[in-house]
């Protein structure tokens, strides 16, 4: 695994790397490096499968992280490629030309995090949320309670118990299990 990262270093700028497990290495690169790097890995390394693609909202830092998990199906190991983009202008180059199933990942990330992948075929096409008119729901500042109150009002006469208040009342501030119990 170290060899492939050394090889990557000779061609691309790697900002950080971490060996999470024997079979899982993580590297961080700049956004502009991602697609050339993934293209190079697919063509010139054993990491030919795009197993997973995901996004993480780091709202405190004003950034969104994109994570690409590549797998070497012969060497039985994975490489996690991470990058961060600006949260307000969330745009990233698409990888659907490298792996066709990336269209679905990019469609979902577009819907859930508001990251645009120009050129990816199903951008803006609803995947799970039909008729959604709120902010992308997987962003950390999306208020689920407010959304529910605005869109799904309680049936008149129905009693509601706030779970936090209920647990606090019944079990106390720290809950009913303590380290010294």
């Amino acid at each position, binding site marked *: 695994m170290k060899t492939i990262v050394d090889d990557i270093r000779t061609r691309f700028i790697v900002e950080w790397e971490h060996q*999470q497990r024997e079979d899982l290495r*993580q590297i961080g690169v700049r956004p502009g490096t991602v697609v050339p790097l993934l293209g190079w890995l697919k063509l010139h390394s054993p990491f030919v499968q795009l197993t997973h693609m995901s996004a993480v909202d780091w709202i405190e830092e004003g950034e969104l992280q994109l994570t690409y998990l590549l797998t070497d*199906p012969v060497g039985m190991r994975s490489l996690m490629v991470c990058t961060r983009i600006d949260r307000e202008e969330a745009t990233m180059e698409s990888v659907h030309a490298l792996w*066709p199933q990336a269209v679905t990942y990019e469609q979902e990330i577009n819907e859930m995090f508001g990251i645009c992948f120009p050129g990816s075929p199903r951008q803006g096409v609803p995947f799970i949320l039909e008729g959604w008119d709120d902010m992308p729901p*997987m962003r950390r500042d999306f208020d689920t309670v407010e959304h529910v109150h605005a869109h799904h009002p309680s049936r008149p006469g129905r009693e509601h118990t706030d779970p936090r208040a209920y647990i606090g009342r019944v079990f106390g501030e720290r809950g009913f299990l303590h380290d010294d119990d």
Partner: protein
Amino acid sequence: MTTTETTTDTLRRRVQLWFGPQHPGITGNMSVQAWLEGDTLTQGITHVGYLHRGFEKLMERRKFIQSFPIVCRICVPEPDTNEYLLAAGLEELAGMTGDIPERGTWIRTLVLEMSRLQMNLMTLGGHIGSMGLGAAPNWLIAVRDYVLDRFEELTGGRIYHMYIIYGGVRRDLPEGFGERMEETLTKIEEKLPLVDNVIFDSSVFRRRTVGVGVVPEEWVDEMSLSGPIVRAMGLPRDIRKDFPYLIYPELDFEVVTTTGSDIYARAWIRRQEIQQSIDLIRQILARMPEGPYCAKLPNMLTWTIPPGQTYVRAEATRGEMGYYTVTDGSDKVRRIHVRGPSFVHGVALLERMIPGTNIADLSPLMVSLQVCPPEIER
């Protein structure tokens, strides 16, 4: 199935129809928007969202222990893989992987194989049920219920178990569980020759499945395919062997493969894996070590996990199931992203296979890809 639009040109008639979400031939609550000319499908688009409950978002707002009742609902008939992966990812990030007691690890493996067994019984029934043949599905669902009896005895629940928790499992095996499990396995084995006769010796089943729904081998790496789809084309890929976890390296089993890559081959793989799970359960019960079944856990209401990210994977009956887990040092996850095999098999792969498929073969095709909608939309 509802015809919603008919368009004509000078030569042919192109009909658009919705297959699902309410249709006995659809695999769960999803739908395929299909276009066909005559009996042949020319295009299909998968539509999901009917089951979306925002599981991943819910987990970001809950303590780690509160996520177990959520993840088991990500795949209704096979919840245990989700429970295991949630636990494995967070245990790794918390640095407690080495603390899991040996017996707890063996029981986890037992549960995963019981889960695989009942899921394969149901899916094999679905294979032939999707063609309108009713006897074998009824037999298979009936014997699957015997496995659910054991689950109920072990975990308290027939479908959602919430049994695997951080540090091991929630409780020990009940007294005499091994004997009762053996009785269950024997009952299943007694029924299987009949099932073989009705399914694999049936000329109807053979004619409807051999050479139908063939997945080309070059799509495997291109689309990250996994599970029985890959093994049915002769590739011995199985996470249990390739990325060993739990006690699978200590168990004696071979990856089942066949050739053909069609619906028949995928059904045959599932049939063999039923027997494989039965054998593995017997091995596990025979060699089950004594000792504690769960590590001492921190206070679940104040437990925090250092910042980190990982991806853990396991072999579900449908293929590779993975959890991408990110923590930020707080008492909740920053992000959990569930990678179900159906996310690829039920959308990109299914849509790629639909053109040229006969309309009557769409349902058997979907069953053979084992599409599970909740794991697409989570």
